[in-house]
């Protein structure tokens, strides 16, 4: 049985940990003191780089690398802490804000010290009224104790933290959308480049970092890089030739919801498999796993064939999915994938900010197609065509059989791929919201095609058994690649 390794969440349940005095008893702010007393700012940046810490907000970009892009000579520089947690299936930041806000403040202080930042905005989603209240109280307390404000602990360091409430728009979680929203405008993402690290909020260099990422900093400084890098696997990243060492260090706050017996946040080393994770969360509620969403609703779905996939940044990327925000949604055999996709597409159609035509029109279009299929009105053509698949020679080609044409499925894939093409990973939109729409749409449809076909054929929502509903991985892979890879032959 896998054990939880609580680091960020270790003291979460301690009574009154949200007060300065109790937090202090558990090493609170001592790691910040260590940082300013023992290290130069550049040493901290180097430690973060060496630790291999990757952003926990969604993109999984190396934090140390992001910091290195910030020009040193342009001041002021800002830190925006992204606490706009709105990705469906994600709820780990909320607990930090509500129960242990001083930990976030300590992380912010370390980041500010390393980067020479004097002003931090914490962008909290509007619905987190309790989280904002707790963080505001903690900020006031820390200021009163001399850990925030001017001349912190007599070192000449100035740091101010302000909370900034959002107002219910998912897209404000995207870093440039967040910046626009912070400037008092509509939260519509900006074209990149320039990246926020060069030109962000108020046209100044800006570091945008997720709550969980910042909460890792005190532990990296306090316990050292060596301790931190022991957790989690290192791979030779197969996307590079020769393979580049790609660390997935530290723990992750996995948020598990859906059909498990004990949903919740579990802090575990990166690199556990899906099966292990479901076990940690009290096992499956139901008989069989039908599907698992590994990284918030934007991530491509995993089938029951893929439950051995390790849930870390590299492994999931290689599995053509992503760890994203670490929101894992489990579905059992009673769930209908068409229905689930419809729910997710309604979400995206509602949340598109409306700047780019492919996204503004494409997303509701995809939603309408899925709605039609779910209503049993999915369109099927009366003619047939040659069936392409794994042919006799073992390659992708004409199998000599014929197949029925499901117009709506072709249309679904085509519309989704014109918002953002999931095979070439190119998008026709300003922000990667486009990918977040077409990734689930195309992956659900490809991996559970028999269920979609059944709904169209029978003119109603039909739920197939797990084995019937799922495409075999080799067929899927062949379809995506249009060739048979050697290891699968």
């Amino acid at each position, binding site marked *: 049985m896998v054990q939880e390794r609580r680091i960020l969440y270790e003291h979460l349940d301690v009574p009154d940990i949200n007060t300065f005095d109790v937090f202090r008893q558990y090493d609170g702010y001592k790691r910040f003191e260590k940082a300013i007393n023992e290290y130069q700012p550049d040493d901290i940046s180097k430690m973060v780089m060496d630790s291999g810490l990757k952003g926990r907000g969604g993109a999984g970009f190396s934090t140390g690398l992001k910091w290195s892009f910030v020009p040193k000579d342009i001041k002021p520089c800002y830190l925006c802490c992204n606490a706009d947690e709105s990705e469906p299936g994600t709820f780990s930041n909320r607990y930090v804000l509500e129960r242990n806000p001083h930990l976030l403040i300590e992380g912010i202080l370390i980041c500010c010290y390393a980067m020479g930042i004097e002003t931090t905005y914490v962008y909290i989603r509007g619905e987190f009224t309790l989280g904002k209240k707790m963080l505001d109280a903690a900020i006031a307390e820390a200021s009163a104790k001399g850990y925030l404000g001017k001349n912190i602990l007599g070192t000449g360091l100035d740091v101010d933290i302000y909370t900034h409430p959002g107002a219910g*728009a998912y897209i404000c979680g995207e870093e440039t959308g967040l910046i626009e929203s912070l400037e008092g405008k509509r939260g519509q993402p900006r074209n990149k480049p320039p990246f926020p690290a060069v030109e962000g909020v108020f046209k100044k260099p800006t570091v945008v970092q997720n709550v969980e990422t910042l909460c890792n900093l005190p532990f990296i400084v306090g316990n050292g890089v060596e301790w931190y890098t022991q957790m989690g696997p290192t791979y030779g990243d197969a996307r590079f030739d020769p393979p580049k060492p790609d660390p997935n260090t530290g723990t992750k706050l996995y948020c598990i919801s859906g059909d498990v017996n004990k949903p919740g946040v579990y802090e575990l080393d990166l690199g556990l498999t899906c099966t292990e994770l479901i076990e940690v969360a009290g096992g499956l509620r139901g008989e069989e796993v039908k599907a698992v969403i590994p990284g918030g609703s934007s991530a491509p779905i995993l089938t029951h064939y893929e439950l051995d996939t390790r849930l870390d940044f590299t492994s999931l990327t290689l599995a053509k999915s992503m760890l994203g925000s670490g929101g894992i949604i489990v579905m059992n055999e009673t769930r209908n994938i068409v229905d689930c996709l419809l729910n997710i597409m309604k979400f995206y159609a509602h949340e598109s900010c409306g700047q780019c035509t492919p996204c503004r029109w494409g997303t509701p279009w995809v939603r309408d197609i899925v709605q039609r299929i779910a209503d049993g009105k999915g369109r099927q053509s009366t003619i047939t065509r040659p069936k392409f698949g794994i042919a006799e020679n073992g390659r992708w080609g004409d199998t000599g059989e014929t197949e029925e044409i499901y117009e709506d499925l072709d249309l679904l894939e085509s519309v989704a791929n014109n918002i953002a093409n999931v095979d070439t990973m190119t998008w026709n939109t300003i922000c990667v919201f486009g990918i977040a729409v077409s990734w689930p749409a195309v992956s659900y449809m490809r991996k559970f095609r028999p269920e979609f076909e059944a709904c169209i054929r029978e003119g109603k929502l039909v739920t197939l058994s797990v084995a019937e509903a799922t495409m075999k991985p080799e067929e899927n892979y062949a379809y995506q690649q249009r060739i048979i890879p050697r290891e699968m032959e």
Partner: protein
Amino acid sequence: MSDEIIQIETPFQFTEENRLEFDKLMGRYPVKEAAMLPTLHLAQKQEGYISPAVMRYVAELLEVSLMKVKDVVTFYPMFFEEPVGQYVIRVCHTLPCALRDCKVVLEHLKTKLNTDVAAETDLAKGTTSDGRFTLMKVECLASCDVAPVIMINDDLHRNLTPEKVDEILDNLE
């Protein structure tokens, strides 16, 4: 001028307390416009919704055009452009909550309050005739581990069943 097109019903002004709160906000940002969201939140708390008068007032305070304020108000779902009930009930209906039967909770609320669900452009549709409740659907509230969840004004209610909903509504005064 666009100012004249919008009819002003009741004038609006921050209370003394809120004015102090607003002055505090002003010290936080290098440009006034950046205080837009917190200012609108403050105004909505006082007035209940963002009326045309509120928009005018905020535009003056932040020294931006009325259009800019309107632009922002229409973008964010949390700002209401028409009056809402005393209690705003937000029912989460995104996937993790849907997997835990949020539909049952929503249907129960609909029959109990005898109202429909508000549309973003038509809040009156989801408001009870006595003006006590407004029922609306929202996206994931970041509490999927305790799904299904609803928010009543600022409070989150977890692991709901129809019985629990009854109990919570009965406890509202």
